[in-house]
């Protein structure tokens, strides 16, 4: 298909699309896709993913399809949208890149003692298992099923025979109990009450 024929074909399809013809619109977008991708690549959008820009152009085209004048050629309309969206994407990318800072190696944690205390406790699986074992039976069962095995409430209710409401209450109390126990162990270890 020559450029003129394509232009005429796309213009006709767009007229039909404006009238609500979905099949014509899908064909229009499919036929436009290689042209859009070619224009995007030709603009050499530095640091941008071509696919993302192409999809952005398709969405933009969709949102302004009423601005196409059936009496005018289609390709300049499409080309103007495509070029404009590429420039916008580059501008957006440049703005984001300007505010980003590249860190060669991310710090593993924060240096403050306050931030590290809780993490140490939470990372200590031995203490956690001891705290779970110390919970009352119902709460322990609820925590094990919902938090450790990650069962849904429905599955846990079927397995345990408890109602969903009772499970919710038990797991809430269980987590609260765990938090208190872990804080208590921390005090035992450090020897200084919080």
């Amino acid at each position, binding site marked *: 298909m020559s450029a003129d024929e394509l232009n005429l074909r796309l213009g006709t399809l767009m007229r039909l*699309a*404006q*009238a*609500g013809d*979905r*099949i014509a*619109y*899908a064909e229009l*977008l*499919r036929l436009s*896709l290689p042209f859009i*991708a070619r224009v995007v690549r030709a603009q050499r959008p530095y640091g941008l993913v*071509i*696919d993302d820009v*192409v*999809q952005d152009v*398709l*969405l*933009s085209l*969709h*949102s*302004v*399809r*009423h*601005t*196409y*004048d*059936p009496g*005018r*050629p289609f*390709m*300049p*309309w*499409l*080309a*103007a*949208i495509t070029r*404009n*969206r590429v420039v*916008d994407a580059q501008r957006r990318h440049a703005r984001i890149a300007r505010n980003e800072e590249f860190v060669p190696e991310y710090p593993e944690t924060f240096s403050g003692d306050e931030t590290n205390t809780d993490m140490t406790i939470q990372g200590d699986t031995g203490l956690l298992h001891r705290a779970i074992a110390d919970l009352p039976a119902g709460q322990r069962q609820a925590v094990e099923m919902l938090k450790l095995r990650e069962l849904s409430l429905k599955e846990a209710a079927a397995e345990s025979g408890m109602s969903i409401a009772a499970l919710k209450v038990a797991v809430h109390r269980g987590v609260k109990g765990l938090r208190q126990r872990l804080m208590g162990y921390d005090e035992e270890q450090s020897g200084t009450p919080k």
Partner: protein
Amino acid sequence: MNDTSANQLIERLAADTTLVKPLRSPLLRTISWLLLSAPWVVAVVAIMGLRSDLGERVTDFRWMVEQIATFATALAAAMAAFCAGVPGRPRWERFVPLLPLAIWLGSLGDGCLQSWHSLGSAGLTLHTDWLCLPAIMMASFAPAIAMTVMILRGSAIAPMTTTALGALAAGGLAEFGLRLFHPEDASVMVLIWQVGTVFAMVTIAGLLGRTVLRWRPALLASGTAA
């Protein structure tokens, strides 16, 4: 490119499409804008009262040239703003208002020179004329609202140019009305206070262009803002 994701998007967009009403031509939109705006300007002029020397003014060639050029600038700017919102239209259309604008400013500039030649520096004396600013703002209120609503129907292909041209249209029409009730004809005063106000509006509107006119994400029927 990743054909699968693009094709999936095409399917979604095609499924979402409905009947859309194409934008009318810029000429018809300019006429619509004028029909919406003119009654407001006429009302402002009527409320403020026609200037007492209007009969004399309409026989003044320079005054008439300035009024015609002001009106032509407003219309050309409105049409250029509507053209600028349509992708793929030629860029020269955006510069058409420069012609009547040059005649308008040229006539005022010539008036300043004439005053300078006949009265010396006294001919270019400036005094404060605070009526111009609120009067132009008031007269341009409805034209500006109508223009904003209408350019929002277009695309954000040239947002700053579009809003600046829209402000020039609204301000130009207001200035045309202002000179029917405000008896200030010293070219330097008109240039600084009246044209200055219009250009302040143009500058502010241009700077707000990217905020006012944005590419709106397509809202698909599935309820997702794609």
